[in-house]
């Protein structure tokens, strides 16, 4: 199993969710994060002093998938989150050693 972690632009969450639903992938976990990359934050002014708001609001999505689905899920997220402008975000792929559904105690792929 793989865990795919994507850092995307907040307004893209809805289209990513839809894209995953179409694939039949229905579970995901979402976190509000702030990011820093090529896209630097804005310069803000507060009471006459400038400062860099270095971190831009982003959404982190985590999806655990079966190895065989990973490719398609990665593609779907990449496409749905794409705008072509700086700050579109990144995808990171992790190996998953195990997974358990708390409600039923199922484990492995059937727990996803």
């Amino acid at each position: 199993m793989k865990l795919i972690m994507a850092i995307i632009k907040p307004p893209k969450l809805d289209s990513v969710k839809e894209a995953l639903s179409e694939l039949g992938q229905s579970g995901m976990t979402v976190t509000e994060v702030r990011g820093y990359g090529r896209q630097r934050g804005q310069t803000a002014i507060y009471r006459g002093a400038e400062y860099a708001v270095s971190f831009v609001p982003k959404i982190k999505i985590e999806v655990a998938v079966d190895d065989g689905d990973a490719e398609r899920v990665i593609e779907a997220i990449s496409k749905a989150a794409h705008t072509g402008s700086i700050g579109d975000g990144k995808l990171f792929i992790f190996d998953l050693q195990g997974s358990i559904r708390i409600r039923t105690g199922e484990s492995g792929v059937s727990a996803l």
Partner: protein
Amino acid sequence: MRKIFAFGVLTSALFFTGPAFAAVSEETTYILNTFSFLVNGVLVMFMAAGFAMLESGLVRAKNTAAICLKNIALYSVAGLAYYVVGYNLMYVDVGNIMGKFALFYNPSGAELALINAEEATDGLVSAVVDSGYSTMSDWFFQMVFVATAASIVSGTLAERIKVWPFIIFVTVLSAVIYPIQASWVWGGGWLDAAGFSDFAGSTLVHSVGGWAALTGALILGARRGKYGSGGSIHPMPGANLPLATLGTFILWFGWFGFNGGSQLALGSALDASAMALVFVNTNLAAAAGVVTAMALTQAIYGKMDLSMCLNGALAGLVSITAGPDLQNPLLSIIVGGVGATLAVLVVPLLDKVKIDDVVGAIPVHLVAGIWGTLAVGIFGSGSFTTQLMGIVAVGVFVSVVSSVVWLALKYTIGIRVSEEEEEMGLDTFELGLEAYPEFGRAM
């Protein structure tokens, strides 16, 4: 013991021997009239805070600082514009169509003479007292009404309009548009002569703000993403509902000044009695609005929508504003309840036709304002057709002039923020700061 209080009190008044009946002295009348303008005016002034909180609560967090700025700016600009030209245009030497175009409205000579005199002679006081109230107290009371009309616009157009063009529109609205149409009625112009009746401004204040907001919404367009293809609607819930609730309570509080002060006098038993009646009707109409909106949203949607119940209170208030002097308070419950019903029903209708009104100002101020004005022709002393004529006249005038101003702004400096600004929020781009920089992000 509450009720049987008056005896001790009245006894002291009885020492006053003189003639059989003791009325109010002219100077006392002057003071009371003036003080009524000031106290009621201050209550209306505070409505600016109510609008600011209502709108801060109903926009998304990323546009909150911008709406705060717009609200304090519009209140300021409206007052300045009304001082510079508005009041004169509305009240001084009003012909049929408008008053005098003259700069600044200043204290009366008689009042300055009294203030500057070594001694307050009978003649000096009498010259002042003859006018019935202090000129500047009236200016103050009228000024806070202009600001109310301007506040209505900011709510509808929130989350996408640029600050400066909005400020320019408010300037024109307060300096010219509002005063001209108001002169037709309150200045003694043609609509007043025709018998049109609008006690505190369901039409002259609330609908005016509503028309300006509506034309603005049409010309500005909806927020990006609000309306999907195929008629789908994507709600954008307000970020802070306790603030919206607070704003509504503040508006309700201020409305007693709005309607009560519009009795325009306190210097006689008649005026005091009438003001008390206005207070009661105002409260009952608003209360009926809340209960109606609760029942309706529960019935239609299966859940009560707090934002619509707040709208219900305001729709009740707007509805009763044209005729809060109804002599049977039961009628004000009906007027308020119908107003809230209209507001609750019009909110989704506007979405159907893709008019994006962030806080519901159009249902609340325009629709309920029209209803309230007509209600005077039904339950009150006015004639239905005259009321309708006034509504149409004001509506056409304000819509046409507002559209011209909005279009002129659109094709010169532009009125809408860029797509990126809208997505990231107006706060970062126009103000360079965030309203809640920390929540959920303690960095």
